């Protein structure tokens, strides 16, 4: 049975009640406890710095050359908080409700409430750390709106919010490094987890400079390794983003929840060629002022600016009059796909729609628009060579975020005692669809506020146990398995590149397991992925050795895990015979093409257990005591 450990009491009191009852560890004892944090994004850096401030000994790992480069850095738009600074009727309750509804009622009430409750103090925290959030002339903080909500609760630092928050977290991390409470291991990649007598006790990492495998033992292991959307290959994620840490944990016993809940973002730059390695996101904040449209005529080849108003189809405004261009992501993406598939797409490959600022510029003036989005327009120009002040941007849906991840309870602990998952790599607060600007929030809250308050409950026991050392035979065994895995990859010596197989996987996943899915397609995808796995292990060529910096080997190791993860994602999508949030099953839709959720049968979180080559499903039933699940309508 999955125990989510939801505390007693009313929704408003649960977190408080939890804290009152949680165990404490005295400062002298904290010093004796070691914690490994894998990841230095908002979740990892926030947790590592805060745990170190509390007195624990922390080791923090990341694969980049510096903690400051974790992919949180790329978030542009902003971070939500229920401050109600705009006096527009916002509250913790409303934010809770928006998030739960945005996630299409596939997340836990108690978790979501806590997220909303802790959002306001988080903004206080970041302001204190020196984050240069946007301000009014009088000196107070500014807000804007994001998709799926009707209040203004998003805080931002130009178009570089994630960067500014991450740099704050990174600087706090280095402050604690200087205090000798954090030891940093950049350019180290987790390749496996060590579980001793059912508890997480350490990790095996590869030093990416020397190729050496290293063992680290600890009293608890925290994974904060970010999202896995690179399974689609083309995505808005960084090239190095991977699912390896959570996949290895999954194979060692951690349940993987809702793997197929992945978000496709409506406003990225379209793919223009086969060689493309990355899809750049254009922030959702652009939808505050930009209007999305396609020509009313199929295959209309005229230049955008020459198409008269009457011949433009502002399809989001048409279909969802009350939210219009700010409809939630899953809905906006699907609506774009619908128009593109129907033959109304624009751009060279007819795979894009327009995002137009003409009206906003007329209304607010060029200066205001420049002030709000200047750097995004600059970025657009750098990549496409086009000036979007004069003609509309071309945008297209792209894989962006994983709601799914390791199953965690209210304490953020996985099903392996002593192993925690925080930030994007867990499945916790976003249900079947994440609202914009809620993810920087979740990663930060997990790292700064939740984990440092919940980990004590476990560590209080660890204190009484033997402290693990890397001499334990289990470390030896796991390290040997990793060695074998690497040697096997290097010895295939086939004639195809790692990228070749990644492109193949990406195509299958994008075709069958992205914006819309159906049983037949998913079954086909599973067979195809099995074929790719087989081909990969027989035909891949990884040149160079393992005792050196070898970027090709790094890619191969990550892809080997993505391939297996792809199987689980399709299995999960196949099992869930309903449409909810980002998971749209074509068989389950209304006559108007809207998602048809099935609460009677599927009001649960799917948590998958690894079982050799197959997966066993466990269900965590979702109960709603405070909000009645309704049909999610944005019309």
């Amino acid at each position, binding site marked *: 049975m999955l125990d989510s450990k939801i505390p007693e009491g009313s929704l408003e009191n649960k977190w408080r009640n939890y804290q009152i009852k949680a165990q404490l560890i005295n400062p002298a004892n904290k010093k004796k406890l070691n914690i490994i944090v894998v990841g230095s994004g908002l979740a990892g850096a926030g947790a590592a710095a805060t745990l170190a401030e509390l007195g624990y000994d922390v080791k923090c790992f990341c694969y*980049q050359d510096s903690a400051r480069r974790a992919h949180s850095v790329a978030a542009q738009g902003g971070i939500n908080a229920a401050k109600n600074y705009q006096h527009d009727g916002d509250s913790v309750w409303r934010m809770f409700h928006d998030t739960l509804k945005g996630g299409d009622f596939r997340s836990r009430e108690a978790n979501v409430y806590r997220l909303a409750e802790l959002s306001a*103090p988080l903004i206080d925290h970041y302001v*204190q750390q020196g984050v240069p959030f946007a301000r009014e002339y009088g000196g107070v903080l500014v807000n804007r709106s994001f998709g799926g909500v009707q209040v203004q609760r998003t805080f931002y630092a130009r178009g*570089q919010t994630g960067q500014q928050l991450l740099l704050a977290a990174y600087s706090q991390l280095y402050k604690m490094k*200087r205090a000798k409470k954090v030891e940093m291991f950049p350019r180290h990649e987790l390749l496996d987890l060590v579980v001793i007598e059912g508890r997480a006790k350490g990790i095996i990492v590869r030093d990416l400079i020397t190729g050496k495998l290293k063992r680290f033992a600890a009293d608890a292991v925290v994974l904060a390794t970010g999202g896995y959307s690179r399974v689609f290959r083309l995505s808005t994620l960084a090239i190095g983003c991977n699912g390896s840490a959570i996949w290895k944990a999954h194979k060692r016993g951690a349940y993987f929840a809702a793997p197929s809940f992945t978000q496709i973002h409506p406003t990225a730059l379209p793919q223009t060629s086969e060689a493309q390695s*990355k899809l750049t996101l254009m922030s959702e904040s652009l939808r505050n002022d930009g209007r999305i449209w396609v020509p009313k005529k199929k295959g209309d080849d005229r230049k955008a600016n020459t198409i008269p108003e009457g011949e433009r189809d502002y399809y989001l405004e048409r279909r969802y009059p009350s939210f219009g261009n700010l409809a939630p992501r899953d809905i906006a993406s699907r609506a774009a796909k619908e128009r593109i598939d129907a033959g109304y797409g624009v751009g060279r490959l007819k795979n894009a729609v327009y995002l137009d600022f003409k009206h906003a510029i007329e209304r607010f003036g060029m200066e205001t628009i420049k002030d709000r989005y200047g750097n995004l327009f600059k970025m657009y120009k750098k990549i496409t060579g086009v000036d979007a002040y004069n003609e509309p941007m071309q945008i297209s849906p792209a894989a962006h975020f994983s709601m799914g991840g390791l199953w965690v309870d209210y304490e953020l602990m996985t099903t392996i005692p002593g192993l925690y998952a925080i930030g994007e790599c867990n499945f916790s607060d976003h249900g079947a669809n994440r609202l914009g600007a809620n993810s920087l929030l979740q990663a930060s809250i997990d790292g700064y506020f939740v984990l440092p308050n919940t980990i004590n409950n476990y560590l209080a026991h660890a204190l009484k146990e033997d402290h693990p050392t890397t001499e334990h035979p289990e470390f030896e065994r796991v390290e040997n398995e990793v060695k074998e895995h690497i040697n096997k990859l290097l010895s295939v010596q086939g004639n195809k590149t790692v990228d070749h197989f990644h492109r193949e996987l990406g195509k299958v996943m994008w075709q069958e397991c992205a914006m819309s899915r159906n049983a037949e397609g998913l079954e086909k995808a599973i067979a195809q992925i099995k074929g790719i796995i087989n081909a990969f292990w027989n035909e891949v060529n990884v040149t160079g050795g393992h005792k*050196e910096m070898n970027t090709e080997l790094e890619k191969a190791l990550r892809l080997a895990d993505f391939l297996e993860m792809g199987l689980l994602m399709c299995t999960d999508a196949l099992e869930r015979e309903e449409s909810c949030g980002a998971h749209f099953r074509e068989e389950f839709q209304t006559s108007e093409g809207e998602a048809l959720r099935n609460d009677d049968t599927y009001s649960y979180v799917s948590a998958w257990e690894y079982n050799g080559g197959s997966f066993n499903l466990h269900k965590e039933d979702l109960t709603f005591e405070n909000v009645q699940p309704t049909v999610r309508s944005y019309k």
Partner: protein
Amino acid sequence: MKVIFKIWRQENAASKGNFESYEVDGLTKDMSFLEALDHLNELLVSINKRVIAYEYDCREGICGQCGVFINGRAHGPHDHMTTCQLHMRSFEDGDTIVVEPWRASAFPIIKDLVVDRSALDNIIEKGGYISAKTGTAPEANAILVGKELADKAMDAAACIGCGACVATCKNSSASLFTAAKINHLNSLPQGKQEASKRVLEMTRQMELEGFGSCTFTGACEVECPEGISILNIAEMNARRTKAKWLG
């Protein structure tokens, strides 16, 4: 599109490096510069050769991990652009493109085009933060920061830590990088408490790491992807002098 890449190859920190030439066909103008290198690496794998090591992560100009010298310029031919944002449309068919790692004694080469920039982290460690613990913050709007000041702090805070300023500087100075962080924090009310200590300790660390001193050539601000102004260095120096004499 066809080009000739002349690329610095070096097996590891200890070995001696040299340029190697690769004729690469089948490129398109739409490809990013790094995608062209990806393509070259796939060709190398297909003839069983070791791939070229180069750095990147976000590929959208914000993480600061990419960065090489291209035809004698940090991050390539354009001002204010990262290597990952450069596209092949900036080159002509048949061009020879010379690619080298950042060259600075504080940035030792690890392999091929990859260098070690941890010296920059070491500078941050010496005060590029505000010493306040999680959980101790006052209400956010209790600290008022006027828009102009917030914008100015943001201009400096935008640094992505790529190291192009160092690589392009004939003195290998890290002044632009260091000034950006100091001015970001020291200009905000939150950063005032530790302002003097911060400027003294961070600038001292910058010298200890072996970066050269600034002679105001202005080369850095041209290559800086975030367009961080050299005026920041003057401001840092003023802050430093003030801190030295007035504490």
